[in-house]
């Protein structure tokens, strides 16, 4: 536990002036981000909320815009986020950004440890299919509208991939999401996604 962190964080989230009388009581509860994304935004697999630690500002904007417009939100957890995004006023964004900039923890790397052969397999598949957009080390590339992936929880990477394969994600999305969906659906079955995830999470 990191008490200092929370004191700052909460001050950021809650130090607001009340608006209409009806809103006042509601706003005190507006700590929506961490209800789903977990303490210190570490992610919570039970509600499908990924870690927000290290999220790029450009990607945050793009994701929220996609949720608000409805082009993203094609599966259960994403629909929850769509509702939350539509409720989040633009005027709150500076505070959200401050919150996110304060996140300093690191994401749980997952319990499973992959062996060297798996990591090698993942590394090769990454280089072949993923690196051109998401960067050699998964650091992301704004020019390609490809977010950083290494910062994400392993379970989320798997779930996001599956959503692209199943069509819940990307079907109504912008060009980058559509491209990702197309890749996900056209990739040979022999590509071991679990190995790619292991590579992203464990390779240093």
């Amino acid at each position, binding site marked *: 536990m990191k008490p200092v962190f929370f004191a700052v964080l909460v001050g950021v989230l809650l130090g607001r002036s009340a608006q209409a009388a009806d809103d006042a009581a509601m706003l005190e*509860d507006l700590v929506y981000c961490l209800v789903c994304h977990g303490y210190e935004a570490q992610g919570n697999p039970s509600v499908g909320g990924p870690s927000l630690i290290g999220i790029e500002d450009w990607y945050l904007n793009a994701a929220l815009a996609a949720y608000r417009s409805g082009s993203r939100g094609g599966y259960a957890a994403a629909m929850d986020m769509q509702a939350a995004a539509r409720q989040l006023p633009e005027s709150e964004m500076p505070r959200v950004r401050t919150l996110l900039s304060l996140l300093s923890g690191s994401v749980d790397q997952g319990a499973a440890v992959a062996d060297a052969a798996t990591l090698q397999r993942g590394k090769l598949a990454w280089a072949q299919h993923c690196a051109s957009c998401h960067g050699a080390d998964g650091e992301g590339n704004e020019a390609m509208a490809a977010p950083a992936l290494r910062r994400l929880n392993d379970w989320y990477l798997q779930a996001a991939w599956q959503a692209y394969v199943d069509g819940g994600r990307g079907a109504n999305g912008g060009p980058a999401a559509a491209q990702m969906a197309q890749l996900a659906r056209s990739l040979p079955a022999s590509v071991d996604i679990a190995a790619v995830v292991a590579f992203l999470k464990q390779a240093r």
Partner: protein
Amino acid sequence: MTGMLAALGAMPHSATAQTVTLRPARPQRKVLLLGAGISSLMAAFELEQAGYVCEILEASHRAGGRCMTLRSGDIVDEIGNRQVCRFDDDPTLYFNAGPSRIPHEHATVLGYCQRLGVPLETSVNLNPAAWLQFDAFNGGQRMRQKQYIADARGFMAELTQKGLDDAWLDAELGESDRDLLRQFLRSYGDLGAGDRYRGSTRSGYSSGGLVAPGVLRDTTALKDLLKADFWRMGMHFAESSLQSAVLQPVGGMDRIVSAVTARLRSKPRLHSVVVGIDVQPDGVEVQYRERGELRRTRADYCLSAIPAQLLLGVDNNFSADYRRLLAGRPRGKLSRLGLQMRERFWEAEGIYGGISWTGQDITQIMYPSGGFGGRKGVLVGAYILSGEINDRWVNLTSDERIERALQQGEKLHPGYRSYFESGVSVAWHRMNHMLGCTATGSDPGTAAALRAPFGRHYLIGDQVANYGGWLEASVLSALAALQDLDAKEVEAA
């Protein structure tokens, strides 16, 4: 302990009131309760009676959890659908957004109502005068349930009479019992001459009946009756714990919440969001944010009603096994919607309480069981049980949900929309600080395993019951935890 745990597993058939007798607490023994739902509140009530110091932390703006009654001015904190209830400021105009019925077998909760002085009244659950409406049946037109039920039973009885096989009868029944069976079927189906079903007074007359001679209604052919999904649920739902008449607190289910809270020395601390739980050998330390301040508190025991799916988002030192169990509880989905109507038009249709069933998304319309003959009334305009429908419904705005409810209600009550004044909707799977509700019948093994404490941390609430969604399950879970806690205290003393 065994008895109570068995009762939890066997819900909803625990007809005997469970009680817990805690030995007097040693000085300054403290219990932390996380979440101010009915399980925590009842546990705190018992603990304080025994001399324990209690501290109750509640993340949201109100106590009661899903035991929530909405009245004028109340806030619904659903993510993406924040609303304020705009019913008239009138205590009789309320909407139980969560549980609304207490079956007669839920003796523990009924016992607490008595102890706490919560007046109860009858809640009409099954009302054969209410409607059924299914698009594939009767040209989509509504029909009184009693008409459907009388025809269904009549034709089934006729069919059975015809199908009785002499060889079978000889083998199973003696001469006199054979005759009894035939009489039973005549009575069951209201069969006429030649053991044929040609309609029944049970359907209600199409005209006359009291003064003028009654004219029987035409029957509906069996093959058509089968087309109404009414027989899948609505026709039989009130034949278990949810019998035709159940009980409800006068004025709203949250009367139980206010009655128990009034008796507590330590009131729930609202706006207090738990962010960390540290289970130690001799106690539990909890960190929480209260209106922006980070605070830390500690107690000898912790009873947590935080939904399992959110508990995993709290910093904790649970074992991997315990975390796996928590992750194994699914997020249940349920939605309800309340509509204030300017007239109690359903009473003009002869409907006093009960439920109409439809194949449309709203699934049910529930009529108030009190305030008969008054002017305005609040209907439950949708009570959606299907996960598939709930997935769609939750993504509508509150206004869209109300619009659909009015549109669909029109098929059950022509002119429905013209009575509408104000509505409020709750999808429990998207309520802030909950994000899910009862997960009845899913994976009883996980629920059972979660009833065992992790050190001095007990998970409580209907989430650890085999049969969730009932106050009884929540309260029994709390009592089971208390009995275990009591035993631990005896060992320690």
